[in-house]
């Protein structure tokens, strides 16, 4: 991306305490995923006879009903939950950016594109995802596609309204008069102007995407035998609940909440920076 975009984003990210906290949380998770598999001496599917072990030095987050280390499940489970959520949100933002800027800039496509956006948007996301996800056993790639398909309409809408106001600005007029083609203006000027806000939507959508994808894993879309944060909660509910294994129930939920809060803090700070009316102090 352009230098302006980069500088503006960096200044937003590091000028506020809340977004700094968000960056720290996300970095911590990334470090956990990268370093974790090398450091933790247990595999995520490795069973042992130490079932329901309380958190201790050898098992920092305890073990589950099969004696599997909860921390290693948390680290390995991040791939189908956190990474899928991030990529799904990225797909949604790309579709939203494309549809939104086309609908906002070219008046002749507007009716078709906004109509299409409204139609997809009217479906409640989870029932729609459930149906899409059960057509065949959902792999991680399927989940990413499903997330993108379900999450793009609100983004497209907001991008469109941004583009509508940018289209009327003097610098676009100048560009038109100077003989730039419409497609050039769209790519070089319009999309660049909405890039920061698109990034804010991306960050906020990641949060929603992680909750949705873990939810789907939890209710059984996708393979419950593959370790993910959602399937951890599923098994913890079935086997940890009455065994009083609080560490097993808490770990995946806290991980999801913390990560989502991290993304939300960044997203809301960017929104605040772009829209000073929201500023708290």
């Amino acid at each position, binding site marked *: 991306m352009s230098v302006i975009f980069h500088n503006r984003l960096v200044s937003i990210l590091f000028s506020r305490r809340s977004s700094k906290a968000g960056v720290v949380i996300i970095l911590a998770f990334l470090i956990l995923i990268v370093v974790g598999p090398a450091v933790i001496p247990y595999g995520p599917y490795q069973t042992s006879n130490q079932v329901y072990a309380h958190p201790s030095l050898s098992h920092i987050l305890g073990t589950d009903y099969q004696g599997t280390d909860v921390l290693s499940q948390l680290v390995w489970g991040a791939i189908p939950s956190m990474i899928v959520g991030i990529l799904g949100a990225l797909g949604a933002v790309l579709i939203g950016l494309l549809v939104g800027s086309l609908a906002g800039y070219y008046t002749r496509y507007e009716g078709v594109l906004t109509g299409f956006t409204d139609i997809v948007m*009217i479906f*409640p996301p989870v029932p729609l995802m459930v149906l899409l996800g*059960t057509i065949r056993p959902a792999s991680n790639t399927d989940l990413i596609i499903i997330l993108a398909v379900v999450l793009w309409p609100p983004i497209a809408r907001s991008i469109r309204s941004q583009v509508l106001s940018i289209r009327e600005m003097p610098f676009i007029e100048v560009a038109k008069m100077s003989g730039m083609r419409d497609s050039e203006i769209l790519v070089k000027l319009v999309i660049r102007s909405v890039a920061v806000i698109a990034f804010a939507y991306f960050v906020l959508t990641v949060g929603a995407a992680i909750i949705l994808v873990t939810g789907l894993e939890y209710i*059984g879309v996708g393979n419950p035998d593959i370790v993910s944060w959602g399937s951890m*909660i599923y098994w913890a509910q079935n086997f940890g609940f009455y065994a009083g294994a609080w560490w097993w*129930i808490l770990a995946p939920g806290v991980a999801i909440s913390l990560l989502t809060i991290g993304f939300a803090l960044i997203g809301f700070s960017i929104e605040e920076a772009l829209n000073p*009316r929201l500023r708290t102090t």
Partner: protein
Amino acid sequence: MLNLVFLLPRLVPGSAANVLAAGYGGVPEQVVASINARLGLGQPLLVQYVDYMKGIFTNWPPYFGVSYAFYPYTVSYLVWIRLPFTLMLMAASFVLASLLSFLLGVASALRRGSKFEFASMYSSIIFWATPPFWLGLLFAWIFGVDLHWLPVFGTGTFNAGAGTSYIASTIVHLVLPVATMTLATFGFQFLVLRGAAQQVLESDYVIAARARGLRNRIVAMGYILRNSMLPLTSLLGYTVSFMVSTAVFVEFVFGYNGVGDLLVDGIINRDYPILEGGLFYVTLLVIILSLVGDFLLLRLDPRLRR
């Protein structure tokens, strides 16, 4: 002017029904909704498509086939007997969450920059970020398993009988699911409302009202609250869509016999008629309620009546 350009597309409620109904003229609601539903569903069932459409359009209640798992009940029957429970859950949580976010929203709009605003802002982010199913699980664990205060499973006691005891057991079984849904919806609504309230707070008429010496409370109730209700009303359909999604998770956690739990059963049994019919009905619900939202918005906002 720029604000208006920015706001107007957001104030126009997001229902495809508007677009479609405008295009087709006097088409009944169910038809519009089933066109919507069909658009998402047709592809993998292309062969059965024609029969399928016939079943839906020529029958009342629409015929989505017979459930695989609950043979010989039809999908419509299964949805209809469970719908009241889901509606009860959603209505109760909607009312509670709206009240909560209104009170906190206005209070924090009046005390900008205070600890109170800070606290309500961050608590709404936390509830927005917490997966509803896990929150429900925690509640079930604390209030059900640990404290034994409330039941954690089902919609009512099996042999509750009829009359008062039946109603009492239904209500007791609603408490935890409603609490979970309320907090999740609160997180969502508060963040919408806060943006709206701040916008209203800076507007000329609020400043003018303050300048005229009106009391804080009067400004809050008469000016800020009324005007910040508008975006929440116009987002009614979107909120319902969010709540339907949350309800799927929450009902599954508590084994609450609503439409959401039926859908999850549908996943486990790969019960496609249930999944399709269920999606149809909840989408219909969203469409109807967003039309209600549009209607209310017209009543609330004289500016839109022109």
